[in-house]
């Protein structure tokens, strides 16, 4: 009797949890699928389901020079910000990763703080600083601003990779007469490289997608893609944006697939 009752109780629990989990997973994935489908519409509106299918909006995208211009700016700024983040972030991660010093803990908190603080407030602050010192907004100010909010991802992932490193490997290398630089190049770097790549990838994506900092640090000459899209969407619901979204979704899926192969991205983000 009681065994039967407990089974029913257990089943109710499993059913409820599984159903909510499946609803949540559908909720997460559905919007991207909807955009993909709508982007192939043959009509003029974002009606779902579309009245028919065509590639006309992708063709339209081909001629949208404003979007091309903004995309190129975003790509260049993201590449520079990622490069700068790697150089500064990896060096900093090496210094603070195994250090028991209080200063290392404080620096760690400082380097992570852009992740929690409202980026819009930082964007305004950076604009005020640059106008105070007489530096006009330019790709340079964008790269600086983006680096501040992107470098935490590189620091965090590099520190995580360094934490997995066996100290005995470095000791053996030293005992065998290798210099520190040689040990770094031949032992440390190859072992932490996937962590650096994963961090750099996330930094790149978050720079490419950044709005709050770009909002203050760009002007018409340095239009950025997410802001161009946002302003287009504020004005009118253009189906060209759906096609562009389709391109971005497919590119993201492709890059995540590559990163999963190269760095085991999914394991890194759940450990």
């Amino acid at each position, binding site marked *: 009797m009681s065994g039967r009752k407990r089974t029913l109780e257990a089943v109710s629990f499993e059913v409820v949890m599984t159903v909510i989990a499946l*609803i949540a997973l559908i909720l997460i994935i559905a919007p991207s699928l909807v*955009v993909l489908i709508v982007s192939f519409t043959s009509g003029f*509106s974002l*009606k779902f389901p579309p009245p028919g299918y065509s590639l006309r909006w992708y063709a339209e995208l081909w001629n949208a020079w404003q979007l091309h211009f903004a995309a190129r700016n975003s790509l260049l700024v993201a590449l520079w910000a990622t490069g700068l983040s790697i150089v500064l972030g990896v060096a900093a991660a090496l210094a603070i990763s195994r250090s028991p010093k209080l200063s290392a803990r404080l620096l760690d908190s400082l380097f992570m703080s852009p992740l929690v603080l409202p980026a819009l*407030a930082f964007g*305004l602050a950076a604009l005020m600083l640059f106008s105070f010192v007489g530096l006009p907004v330019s790709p340079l100010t964008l790269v600086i601003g983006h680096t501040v909010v992107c470098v935490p991802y590189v620091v965090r992932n590099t520190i995580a990779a360094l934490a997995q490193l066996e100290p005995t490997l470095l000791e053996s290398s030293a005992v065998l007469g290798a210099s520190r630089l040689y040990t770094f190049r031949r032992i440390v770097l190859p072992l932490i490289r996937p962590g650096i790549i994963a961090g750099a990838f996330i930094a790149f*994506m978050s720079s490419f997608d950044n*709005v709050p900092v770009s909002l203050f640090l760009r002007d018409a000459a340095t239009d950025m893609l997410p802001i161009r899209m946002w302003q287009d969407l504020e004005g009118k619901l253009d189906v060209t944006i759906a096609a562009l979204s389709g391109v971005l979704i497919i590119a993201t899926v492709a890059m995540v697939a590559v990163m999963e192969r190269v760095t085991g991205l*999914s394991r890194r983000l759940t450990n």
Partner: protein
Amino acid sequence: MGTAPASRDVTSYGMGLAAPLALFFLVFFVAPLLQLLWLSLHNDTAGLHWGLGQYLHFLTDPFSLSVLGSTLLLGAEVTLVCLVLGFPIAWLYQRVGPRLQTIIILIVLLPLLTSVVVRTFAWIVILGRQGIINATLQSLGIIDTPLRLLYTQFGVVIALAQVQMPLMTLPLITALGRIDPNLDDASCSLGAGSWRTFFRIVLPLSLPGVIAGCTLTYAAAITAFITQSLIGGGQMLFMPMYLYQQASTLQNWPFASAISIIFLLAVLAVVSVFTTLGRLSRGYGGA
């Protein structure tokens, strides 16, 4: 852990390597924020007259206070939705095979890396007058005229919950993975039902993950400028848009600075409450 301090010189690097980034942060992160604070403490745009005028203005203005209140409330609603939906995902993750685990992680991860504008745009398509929900309800004959879903609090909460869901789910998956599965079995074999085991064993032990997830989700939800402004529309004003309007459209930098500082402090207060709870819960989990 605490072995062989003598080997420290070969296994760790000097603090000097952190100097370039520390300097970079000092000049381009700390200095701007200090300047923001400095300007917020002035009553005029030029920054000549010290005073608390900007803060007094904000704190005595019912409109400003309502914007702050609705922003903090929005964060709480989104966090709650994310927790209720995200926890079962993490639970399911622990019970399936490695192949399905990778699929679940990638489903959770993809939105995190997809452009926020794209994800928000998707919700415009779904919630719009001709969107899926209205089209489905109309074709089923449940409603005659399209429902207003865009530009409502409901729309903003559901869109933000989807956009921020990964930030909740990933720490939960990590936390649930650290719980000894034997505890679950022990609780069940001692006669506690699944629901009771969940609420008395699994949930308390996963509190560090819950708190980490809530902190990230909350901080991200209240600062999500794009989703708030596109789904909320003109009628609903939250702190990020308020800040942007004052700074950009009205060029009132001192007041915008004060809004920034108040917003910063609000976020910091929430984060530190969560962090304190997290520290307490770790003690509880270890006991």
